[in-house]
C-alpha cells in the first residue's frame, strides 16, 4: 500500500491553512496536532489518551513506530491544498493526511486521498456534503455538520423564541452555505417557523449592509446568518449595527441566530455576539473529564484554551492512531475497517459512533450563546444545552446526504 512505513517512524501529514483568512484556525489546529504527536510518542501528560475509552495507545508511537509529521499550507484553496497534500504523500511519504478548515478544501483533499490510497482524517468541515454526496471510503469526519447543527438548535430555539416566528436567512453563496441553510430551514419549519426569505450573499462580500437593510422591513423577526469566518463576523457586526438586536417586530423581540459558531472568529465580532445562539462542536468550558484533560494539557503548553478546531483534529489524530493500533497495520483499508462502526467515549463529546455507512461521527452537539459578562478574552461563549447524539442522528439515506457513494477503500 501507499507509503508503507518501513523504518522506525511513521509520518503523518498535517495540512492546514497557514495563510489567508483562516490562518489563525490553522495555527490552532497545528498546535493540537503537535500536542497529539507528543502524547502519542509518550511525551507530555497524555491528554485525552488517559480518558479515551480505547486503551490501545501506549505512548510509544503508533504500532511501535515513532510518530513524525510534516506540515503544509492549504491557503484555503482546493488547488493549493491538493498540491500540499500531494507533496506530503509523494515526497515525505505521509500515510495519513489530516486537516482543513473549510469544506471545499476538505472535500478536495478527501478526493485526492481516495485516489492516492491514504487515509484522510477531516479537520474542521461542516458541510453535509463531506460525508454526504462527496463521501469517500478513505475519508473520515469527526466534526459535526449542518444537519446536526440544525437538529440541535431547533429545540432550543423553540423553547426560547416559540413556534410562531418568521425567519430570514442570509446565506453564503456556496455549497456549505446552501447545505446549512437547507438544514436550518427544514428544522425550523418543522417546528412551525415560517421562512420569510433566503438571500444568498457573495462570498467576497465584506460589507453586508445592503443585505441587512431589507431585513428591517421584511416582517421577519429572526435573522439566521449562514455565514462562517470573516463573513460571519461582518454580517453579524452589520446586523447589530442596524439595530436588529433592539428591534421589536410584531410585538416580539428580534433575534439573530448564528448556526455555526467559531470562538476564534467570534472574537472578531466582540460584544456583538452577546446573547446570540448558535452551535459548536466542542467548547473548552465543558466539564467532563476528557475535555478538562485536553484543556489542561493544551492550556499548560500554550497558555490559552483550545478551539473546537484544535479539539477535533486532536481527536482525529488519536482516533487514527488508535485504529492503526487496533488493526495492527497502517494499511488504509485495515484502518478504515477499524474505524468503521467504532464506538468510543472519552474524547469530549460523550459516547460517539463512527458510522460505517458514511464515515460520520455521531456525538453530542453543543448549543451555545454569546456570553453577557465574559471574564477573559477566551470566555466568549457559554454552553446552554448539550444535545444528545441520538437527537442529531439521521438515517444514512437522508435526502440532504443523498447522491454519491462511499466506494471502496483504496490502498494505493
Amino acid at each position, binding site marked *: 500500500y501507499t507509503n508503507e512505513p518501513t523504518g522506525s517512524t511513521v509520518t503523518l501529514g498535517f495540512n492546514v491553512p497557514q495563510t489567508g483568512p*483562516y*490562518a*489563525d484556525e490553522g495555527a490552532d489546529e497545528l498546535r493540537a496536532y503537535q500536542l497529539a504527536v507528543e502524547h502519542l510518542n509518550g511525551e507530555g501528560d497524555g491528554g485525552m489518551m488517559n480518558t479515551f475509552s480505547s486503551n490501545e495507545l501506549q505512548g510509544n508511537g503508533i504500532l511501535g513506530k515513532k510518530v513524525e509529521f510534516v506540515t503544509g499550507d492549504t491557503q484555503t484553496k482546493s488547488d493549493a491544498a491538493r498540491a500540499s497534500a500531494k507533496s506530503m504523500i509523494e515526497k515525505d511519504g505521509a500515510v495519513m493526511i489530516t486537516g482543513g478548515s473549510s469544506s471545499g478544501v476538505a472535500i478536495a483533499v478527501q478526493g485526492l486521498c481516495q485516489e492516492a490510497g491514504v487515509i484522510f482524517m477531516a479537520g474542521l468541515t461542516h458541510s453535509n456534503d463531506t460525508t454526504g454526496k462527496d463521501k469517500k471510503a478513505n475519508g473520515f469526519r469527526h466534526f459535526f455538520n449542518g444537519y446536526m447543527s440544525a437538529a440541535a438548535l431547533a429545540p432550543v430555539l423553540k423553547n426560547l423564541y416559540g413556534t410562531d416566528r418568521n425567519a430570514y436567512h442570509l446565506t453564503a453563496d456556496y455549497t456549505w452555505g446552501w447545505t446549512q441553510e437547507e438544514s436550518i430551514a427544514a428544522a425550523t419549519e418543522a417546528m412551525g417557523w415560517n421562512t420569510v426569505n433566503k438571500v444568498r450573499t457573495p462570498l467576497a462580500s*465584506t460589507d453586508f449592509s445592503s443585505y441587512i437593510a431589507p431585513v428591517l422591513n421584511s416582517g421577519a423577526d429572526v435573522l439566521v446568518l449562514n455565514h462562517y469566518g470573516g463573513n460571519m463576523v461582518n454580517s453579524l457586526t452589520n446586523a447589530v449595527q442596524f439595530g436588529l438586536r433592539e428591534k421589536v417586530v410584531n410585538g416580539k423581540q428580534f433575534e439573530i441566530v448564528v448556526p455555526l459558531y467559531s470562538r476564534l472568529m467570534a472574537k472578531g465580532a466582540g460584544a456583538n455576539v452577546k446573547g446570540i445562539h448558535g452551535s459548536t462542536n466542542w467548547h473548552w468550558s465543558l466539564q467532563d473529564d476528557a475535555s478538562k484533560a485536553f484543556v489542561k494539557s493544551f492550556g499548560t503548553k500554550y497558555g490559552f484554551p483550545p478551539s473546537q478546531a484544535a479539539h477535533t483534529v486532536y481527536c482525529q489524530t488519536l482516533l487514527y492512531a488508535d485504529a492503526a493500533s487496533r488493526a495492527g497495520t497502517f494499511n488504509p483499508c485495515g484502518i478504515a475497517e477499524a474505524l468503521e462502526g467504532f464506538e468510543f467515549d472519552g474524547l469530549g463529546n460523550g459516547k460517539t459512533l463512527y458510522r460505517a455507512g458514511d464515515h460520520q461521527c455521531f456525538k453530542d452537539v453543543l448549543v451555545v450563546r454569546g456570553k453577557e459578562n465574559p471574564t477573559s478574552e477566551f*470566555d466568549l461563549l457559554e454552553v446552554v444545552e448539550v444535545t444528545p447524539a441520538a437527537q442529531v442522528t439521521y438515517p444514512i439515506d437522508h435526502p440532504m446526504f443523498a447522491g454519491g457513494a462511499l466506494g471502496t477503500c483504496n490502498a494505493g
Partner: protein
Amino acid sequence: MDAILLQILNGLDKGSAYALIALGLTLIFGTLGVVNFAHGALFMIGAFCAVTVQRIFNISYETVDESQTDFLGNALVVKTPYIESWFGPQMGGAIIDWAVPLAILFTVPIMIFVGYAMERGLIKHFYKRPHADQILVTFGLAIVLQEVVKYFYGANPIQTPAPEALSGIVNLGAIIGMDIVYPVWRVVYFFFSLVVIGGIFSFLQFTTFGMVVRAGMADRETVGLLGINIDKRFTVMFGIAAAVAGLAGVMYTPINSPNYHMGMDFLVLSFVVVVVGGMGSLPGAVLAGFMLGILESFASMNEIKSLVPGIDQIIIYVVAIIILLVRPRGLMGRKGVMED
C-alpha cells in the same frame, strides 16, 4: 419606497467608502502613474492604527482575583487598563470608548510617514520603470506589510467598536415622515468622507500643486527644467495619498472588524473604481465610487436578484465593462494617462 430610499442611502454609504479608498489610490495611480498594489495595504495599516490605539489604551496591569478561576482552574487574572486607573473608570472608560476617533490624530502622521518612507525608499526609483515592475514591487511590498501585521495581530478580525454614543441608529426618515433607520457611525463615515474628499479637492484645485504634479507626471524632465523640484512634490503627494488611505481605513474599522487581508479584499475593487472613473480624474474616481456603491446596493435587493440571479456577484464588473466600452477613458478620464 422606503426600501428603495434605504438602498440609495446604503449605496451612498458604501460608495463613500469606495470613493475614499479610490481617492487615495487615484492620487498615486491616476496622478503619479504608479500602479500601486500596496494601496490596499495602506488602507489596512490605517485600520490597524485604530487597533493599535485601542490596544495602547487598553494596556493593563494585572490583579489576581481569587474568587474566580480561569480556564485551567487557577485564580483568575483580572486586567485593568492603566488609563482607567489614571483617569478613573468613568473618564478612562470614555477615552477607551473613543479610541477610534482619537486614532485619527495618530493615523495622519503615521500614514504620512509610511507614505514618505515608502516613496523615498522604494517607489521613487520606479516612476520611470514599466508598470509591470511597479506591480511586482508594490505587490511584494503589500505582502510584506500584510505579513508583518499578521505576525503581530494574527489573522482573525479584531473588533474595534465605535464610541457608544455613535454606535446606535438614527431615524433619518423622521423629517420626511418616513421610517428610515440607519447606523449612526455609517452616517458619520459618509460625512467624514465628504469632508476628506472636499479637502483634497480644494487643496488640488485652489493651489498650483495639482497642476505641477500633473505636469510632472506628463514630463518630469521639463518640469525640472522649469526649476521645480518635482521629486519633493511627488513625495508630498504620496504622503497625502497614504494619509487618505489611512483615514479611510481607521474610520472603516467600526463598520467591519479589520483583519490583515482586508487590504487585498478592497484592492481589486478600488482599481476598478479608479479606472471606471477615468485615469487622472479625481472627480471621476469619486463619482465612480458612489455610482458603484449605489448599483451594488440595488443589485443586492431581492427584487432585482430574483430577476437576474447572481447579479450581485457580478454587478461591479458588468458595469465596469459597459462603461469602459461606452466611454473609452472611463467616466471622466483624461486622454493619454496610462493608455500605453
